């Protein structure tokens, strides 16, 4: 077990406020903006109505990159607890709520409690988390909102799972309807 797995996320010195230049940077050098959640919400809702959540997904990828740098190792080989600690810490510093990870059989589900309300279907948060996991996993990952959670699935079946969720099928029944793909 490496030191990064045994240590938690360090939030210290994450932001660097350059008041002379009027800029805020993360400790990794990325410039960020501190915005009101009331402003972000309508923007994300508009993007969701137009079916283009690329911007919010890109934001998620940046957050994932930050978490991976904080983890200081390949996230795919790290323990789920270590990855979750750094991702949740990064999201919390940006004001996106507290992230938790659950296993439902072979399916993974995320729960982002305390997140700001962006759009009614929570597709904005799903795109954000999809971007985060795509960055950590090194491949395209889709997150589909099911109830209060987001189930992690392959992008090819995201529409199908989203259809079940809109019909009112809960997460347990969705997991039953999914089976492991033959190797």
């Amino acid at each position, binding site marked *: 077990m490496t030191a990064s797995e045994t240590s938690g996320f360090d939030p210290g010195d994450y932001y660097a406020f350059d008041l002379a230049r009027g800029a805020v940077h993360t400790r990794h050098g990325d410039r960020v903006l501190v915005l009101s959640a009331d402003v972000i919400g309508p923007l994300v809702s508009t993007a969701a109505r137009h079916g283009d959540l690329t911007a919010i997904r890109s934001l998620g990828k940046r957050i994932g990159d930050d978490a991976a740098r904080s983890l200081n190792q390949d996230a795919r080989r*790290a323990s789920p607890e270590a990855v979750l600690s750094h991702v949740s810490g990064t999201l919390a510093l940006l004001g996106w709520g507290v992230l938790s990870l659950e296993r439902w059989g*072979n399916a993974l589900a995320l729960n982002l409690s305390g997140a700001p309300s962006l759009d009614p279907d929570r597709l904005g948060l799903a795109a954000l988390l999809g971007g985060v996991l795509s960055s950590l996993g090194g491949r395209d990952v889709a997150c589909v909102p099911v109830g209060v959670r987001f189930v992690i699935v*392959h992008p090819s079946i995201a529409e199908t799972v989203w259809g079940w969720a809109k019909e009112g099928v809960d997460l*347990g029944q969705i997991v039953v*309807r999914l*089976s492991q793909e033959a190797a």
Partner: protein
Amino acid sequence: MSSARIQKLKSLLARVEQRRAQPRLHAVPGAPLAAAPAPTIAVADDFDDDELFAKTDPPPALLVTERKPAKSPASPPASPLEDAMALLDGSGPLTVQSLAEPIAMRPTAEQPLPRASEPPRTPAPVGRGLEPAPAPVPRAAEPLVRPRMSAPDPSMFDRAESSSTMPVAPVEFRPAPASPRSSGSVREQTLRFDTGVDAAAQPQVDIGNLPPEAAPEPGEQRPASQRALPLTAASHVVEPGPLSSAVAPARAVSVARIEAPRSFGELLELSLALRPR
């Protein structure tokens, strides 16, 4: 009741008390039998008392005896009446009985009246192996004439004896045999008693709410799509660590963690490999 009558009864009771220490039979002189037969009563209804009662001149109006000790089971009863009384309470012969009221004794179902040749039942001691308790001595203020109902119920002693001597056999509990039908409707015909009248078809008892055809036969395999049950809760919840630069405290090792020591990449691949059935 007049005061003179009360006074008379008190004097009679005082005389009885005076003669308690004397031998068991006392004749209480009173009015001649011919003059007042109705209030005349006989006490201690056995042959000796009757003979003494008859020899008393004039016949007493009241004959008081002390309570006779219980006869041993081996000694035969003196009379059929004594026999019956001994069977009922085992306390010995009759002590007080009015001549005007005949004794009505009926054997009950729990206490059938055995034959006179059988030894009378005696109450069993409550504490076996202990020294027998002395015979109860009547208190000074206690009248010698006692109603029979004050005697202890011998059936109580019989029950105690039977419960203490009942052989205890080991009882083995075994699980009920497994039903070949795990679910579905079980139909059993209720018990039918022949009343001599042709009735309609007997009702059936339905257990379960499934139709009979829905119950699987033993060994029948359901389709895979029906075998899986939906989950109601997460099987494993991963909690984030503390937000601190200090070294994280040691985490408690849970069963779920031991069973799933997988990396984040392995868990992610498992979830991404899911496809609709």
